[in-house]
């Protein structure tokens, strides 16, 4: 560890590792710090990811891919099933990852690109001077150090403090977080080609149960409920009920818990000398809870903007505005649309979800995109079209891809 770098990235999740790699490849002097002793562990993820988008950032490697998925099966409260499958020439649409190995592989990529990586190193505060972030106070093995940097990138996930230290309030309201619990189970007997989703306010209030294949006879069986609906019963209680009823004989091999931001875009993700990326910037998708791809996309943009800003010798918000503009016009645009869908769907009763599902019976889906699902729903339900008219307007304006 030196006492000065061009860029310090806080947090070695997908966002941080891609940012560190991108900046290091440009020739910047980069430090990537991670407070955990093992990158990627414990897991707080269902590990599903879109193939095409993943390939933009890293070549898929069988060592961290557990399953190839070709479609989704969605169950409404009364058991009506909607299947969405897609056969793309040469393969399936999604992967289920082994995040422990995937996250480490991404950090390794950043190290190969020249970034210095430090684990068991926790950011404790920012060094601020004249309204500029000038570095990070860290703790490593019980000792504290001041490390200076031209730009700091906050990639510290759902528990992010970096934004708050710079005066950006990133705290999430209970209605802005999905609280989740998951078991890795053997013996569920699911078809490993599909991801399964169960909807219903009894089993998962304003959320859903997911079952993602993990290879052999393994699967991630998890649940997310909206934080505002949690309290009397917590996510793990709903999960236990579901598992007891559905898979009484399956075995639990691992337990994961976590929170996903579903707030939609926050107002500001930059300050002088600072960018926030990934879950720290609340960039996960409000409807699916997916955040891996968005985190990597934001990481890439931030790494590139850091290089430009440092080359020009201007790290003020004026120079970093490019990051803000770029992520908002790409992933941010989809996040905002998903937020509209989320707000409509979380207000539905089980009866309404059932009737939507019935309206889709017999519809043949040739793609897995949420947009196609919405189109079919619009065709069958005029009221939904009205409720989501804002979204519809946007969709007409842009060709949207909800798949990530």
């Amino acid at each position: 560890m030196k006492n000065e770098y061009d860029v310090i990235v806080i947090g070695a999740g997908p966002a941080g590792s891609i940012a560190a790699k991108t900046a290091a490849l440009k020739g910047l002097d980069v430090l990537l710090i991670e407070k955990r002793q093992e990158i990627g562990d414990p897991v707080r993820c269902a590990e599903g990811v879109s193939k095409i988008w993943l390939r933009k950032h890293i070549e898929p490697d069988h060592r961290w891919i557990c399953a190839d998925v070709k479609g989704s099966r969605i169950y409404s409260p009364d058991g009506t099933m909607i299947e969405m499958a897609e056969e793309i020439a040469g393969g399936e649409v999604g992967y289920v990852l082994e995040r422990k190995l995937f996250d480490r592989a991404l950090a390794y990529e950043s190290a190969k690109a020249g970034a210095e990586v430090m684990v068991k190193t926790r950011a404790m505060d920012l060094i601020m001077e004249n309204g500029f972030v000038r570095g990070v106070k860290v703790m490593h093995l019980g000792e504290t150090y001041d490390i200076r940097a031209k730009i700091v990138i906050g990639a510290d996930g759902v528990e992010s403090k970096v934004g708050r230290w710079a005066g950006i309030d990133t705290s999430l309201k209970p209605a802005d977080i999905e609280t989740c619990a998951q078991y890795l189970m053997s013996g569920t007997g699911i078809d490993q080609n599909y991801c399964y989703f169960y909807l219903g306010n009894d089993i998962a209030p304003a959320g859903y149960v997911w079952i993602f294949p993990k290879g052999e006879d393994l699967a991630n069986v998890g649940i997310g409920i909206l934080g505002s609906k949690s309290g009397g019963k917590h996510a793990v209680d709903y999960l236990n009920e579901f598992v007891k009823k559905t898979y009484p004989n399956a075995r639990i091999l691992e337990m994961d818990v976590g929170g996903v931001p579903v707030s939609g875009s926050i107002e500001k993700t930059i300050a002088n000398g600072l960018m926030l990326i990934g879950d720290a910037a609340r960039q996960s998708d409000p409807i699916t809870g997916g955040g891996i791809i968005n985190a990597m996309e934001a990481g890439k943009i931030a790494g590139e903007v850091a290089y430009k800003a440092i080359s020009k010798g201007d790290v003020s918000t004026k120079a970093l505005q490019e990051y803000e503009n770029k992520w908002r016009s790409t992933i941010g645009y989809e996040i905002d649309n998903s937020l509209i869908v989320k707000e409509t769907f979380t207000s539905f009763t089980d009866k309404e979800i059932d009737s939507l599902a019935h309206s889709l019976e017999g519809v043949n889906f040739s793609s897995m995109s949420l947009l196609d699902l919405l189109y079919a729903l619009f065709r069958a339900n005029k009221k939904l079209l009205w409720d989501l008219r804002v979204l519809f307007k946007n969709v007409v304006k842009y060709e949207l891809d909800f798949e990530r």
Partner: protein
Amino acid sequence: MVTINVNKFKCGYCGACVGVCPAGALELVETWIEVNETCTSCGICAKICPVGAIEVKK
């Protein structure tokens, strides 16, 4: 004064409580949660914890 109690045997150190605390009173350090004196006992962390590991002291 410590205003909440985190059951460290239940906690899965996921950091969700840290993300919702409006006061910024929580910190996930290695494998445990630390609470500082700015906690207002609002109870939001206890509400959203996936495993119900947090108890607000009256």
